[in-house]
């Protein structure tokens, strides 16, 4: 098997997935927020909520389009670059993907079209129902794709027949304990992303005393929504980490740079490990804290990287079973760090909302603009931890990534597509950020056409 094709394909998968997941979390959360706003408008008839709905709805649509088009690549690349993976697990992995399209994507895209173009054609409640369907279907699609991903992390409900995995029970996929951590964690992360997006853009306008009738209630709504969501993300994340100790001990060992098995186990504050020699360069650890995190008590064994490597060599044969420790160690810390920082931001926002202090004098509000980056950092590094921490496996304990790649590809082919996708993604990202920024700054005023130059006028006629 060609190792450079594997590495290039991994890069392509990483670029596509990170890029795709740049847009998806905002879709998950903002669809729900816009649906809530429109529902308030329908129930109260208050025009400011209509302006809110339209303003955030426009940003939602710009972001949504990018998620859709990158999603097609996401589905097709399994066959394109990972044909051996597709043959090996298609029996199981394809089902949730097909169901995702049939149950979620159809509803999502059909009713979003109806919602965007249907303002004058539908009754108010029906129009609001359309965005609720979009919101529900978006989050439903997250469930199905995570059912698929959970199988890669923690395979269940399968049998091995003729060199491939065959589905035994479909219900086992749905009750996979892994997905019931991953799904709520991802959805609440999406909600948090949208809440920080709304809070950030709202403060921009509040600090300039513009359109406070729209952005004050936006900020208030996002604060409550985001506060609950980030709390859920952290609580569920804690459970997932405990599950990881049982299901994917190598991932947690790498995330903690824990070389040797410890009982009680120590939590790393700052560690540097040389992966060539498998030795600790620097290590500052707090005793017992990792056991506390893993088992909610002050002792308990957490296995170390070196012991797991030995164990896996005996179980799966010779090979390197250690994922890239540095990346996983720091991904884990950036994700968790961003999460707790967001919790602090949400608490501060709640304090200001409860005291009704959302005005230009409240200078701390300035920080909510850069804080918009926090959920994105957490989302991206969370996925790096999840996917890279599983290496060298593509299906945990079953199929190695190096055995999953398409055998017919040459490095030249993959370089072509990797460069092509990266360049196109990059250019579209520029256009996307330009539009988001433009509409975010323009605010919720009625749309007035700008005065046109003579040449422009000629174009319009």
């Amino acid at each position, binding site marked *: 098997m060609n190792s450079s094709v594997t590495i290039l394909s991994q890069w392509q998968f990483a670029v596509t997935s990170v890029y795709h997941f740049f847009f998806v979390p905002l879709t998950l959360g903002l669809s729900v927020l816009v649906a809530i706003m429109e529902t308030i408008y329908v129930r109260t008839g208050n025009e400011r909520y209509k302006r809110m709905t339209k303003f955030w709805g426009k940003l939602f*649509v*710009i972001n949504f*389009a*990018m998620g*859709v*088009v*990158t999603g*097609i*690549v996401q589905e*097709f690349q*399994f*066959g*394109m670059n990972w*044909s051996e993976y597709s*043959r090996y*697990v*298609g*029996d*199981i*992995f*394809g*089902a949730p*993907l*097909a169901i995702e*399209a*049939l*149950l979620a994507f*159809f509803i999502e*895209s*059909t*009713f*979003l*079209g*109806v919602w965007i*173009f*249907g*303002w*004058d054609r539908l009754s108010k409640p029906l129009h609001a129902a359309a965005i609720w369907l979009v919101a529900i279907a978006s989050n439903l699609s997250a469930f199905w794709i995570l059912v698929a991903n959970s199988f890669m992390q923690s395979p269940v409900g399968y049998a091995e*027949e003729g060199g*491939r995995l*065959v*589905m*035994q029970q*479909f219900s086992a996929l749905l009750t996979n304990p892994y997905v019931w951590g991953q799904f709520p964690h991802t959805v609440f992360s999406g909600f948090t992303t949208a809440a920080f997006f709304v809070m950030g853009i709202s403060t921009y306008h509040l600090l300039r005393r513009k359109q406070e009738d729209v952005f004050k209630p936006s900020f208030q709504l996002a604060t409550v929504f985001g506060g609950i969501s980030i709390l859920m993300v952290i609580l569920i994340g804690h459970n997932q980490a405990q599950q990881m100790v049982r299901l994917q001990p190598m991932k947690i060992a790498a995330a903690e740079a824990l070389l040797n098995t410890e009982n009680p186990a120590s939590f790393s504050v700052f560690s540097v490990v040389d992966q060539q020699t498998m030795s600790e360069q620097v290590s500052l650890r707090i005793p017992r804290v990792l056991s506390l995190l893993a088992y909610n008590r002050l002792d308990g064994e957490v296995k170390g990287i070196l012991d797991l490597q030995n164990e896996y060599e005996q179980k799966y044969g010779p090979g390197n079973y250690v994922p890239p420790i540095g990346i996983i160690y720091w991904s884990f810390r950036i994700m968790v760090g961003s999460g707790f920082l967001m919790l602090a931001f949400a608490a501060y926002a709640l304090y200001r909302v409860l005291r009704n202090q959302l005005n230009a004098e409240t200078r701390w509000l300035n920080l909510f603009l850069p804080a918009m980056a926090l959920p994105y950092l957490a989302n991206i590094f969370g996925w790096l931890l999840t996917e890279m921490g599983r290496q060298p496996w593509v299906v945990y304990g079953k199929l190695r990534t190096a055995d999953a790649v398409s*055998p*017919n*590809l040459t490095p030249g*082919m993959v370089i072509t*597509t990797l460069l*092509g*996708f990266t360049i*196109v993604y990059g250019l*579209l990202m520029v*256009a996307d950020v330009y*539009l988001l920024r*433009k509409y975010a700054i323009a605010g919720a005023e009625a749309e007035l*056409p700008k005065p046109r130059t003579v040449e*422009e006028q000629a*174009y*319009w006629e």
Partner: protein
Amino acid sequence: MDLNTLWFILIAVLFVGYFVLEGFDLGVGILLPFLGKNDTQRRMILNTIGPHWDGNEVWLITAGGAMFAAFPNWYATLFSGFYLALFLMLIGLIVRGIALEFRSKDENPLWRKFWDWATCVGSFIPSLLWGVAFANFIRGVPINAQKYYVGGFWDLINVYSILGGLVTLFGFLLQGAIFLSLKTEEPIASAARRAARRIWAGTTVALVAATIATYLFTDILERLGVNPGPVPIGAVLALLACGWFIRQGRDGWAFASNTLAIVLSTATIFLILYPRVLVSSLSPNFSLTIYNSASGPNTLQTMTIVALIFVPLVLLYQGWSYWVFRKRVSASPKDLHY
């Protein structure tokens, strides 16, 4: 009928749905810069497909997912084998989807011109490549005993596959032109009708040429016989009827008959294929079939239940969305607010 055959039919249905629906929005996309003489006209054209194109594309995503679930080896060999062609198609679909959403969100004429041409080119590439791909399904591609594609990009480009590409290109253009004549007010409707007449001539030439070539390049004689039966003949007849309806100015009937032509031509491909899904040009024994490519019975059963419940539901609410936007798009600000 076994589940393998049922899934073969279901995937055929998904592709038929995709070609019929995305066929017109791809066609409209290519025609955009040619039929829209100014910005208002281009916005009218775009707003005929605005509410629908995304939902139409999901037919493809579902077809891809269904192939993956029901016939993993078909999905794996096809997608890895047609790698660079698929890459081009994906770039086209990405650029075009973004172009449709972004073009009206900035007033700068250069911005709009750029995205209009992006829509055109991004619609052109998949329109051509779908025919290339389907022609290769039945003509055969180098697949070895291990089910691996052993050819390169240029093995996909030949006289027959290019003819196939022209059929889908012209067929989708025709579908788009008739759709516009149905869904817009003047002056676009008349311009679209004139375009439809000319495109129809091209479509007919391409389809007749491709039909003859099918007897030369595929095993249709063994499969369907000299008289290929009602489906392929119906496709040609439907296209002829379409030309007559266009000349009579009966847009609704023209659209229905071209739709029928697309349904029957796609069905013809699947009839020639069955029970194979990809023909091997190396040996008939290496062809992928609905049996040697399929998932296990549990997967097929589960997916059958899901599909039988949800495909009719999809048809129902997508049909409803077309009903909501049944009126012609005019140049009034109400129709162009987006």
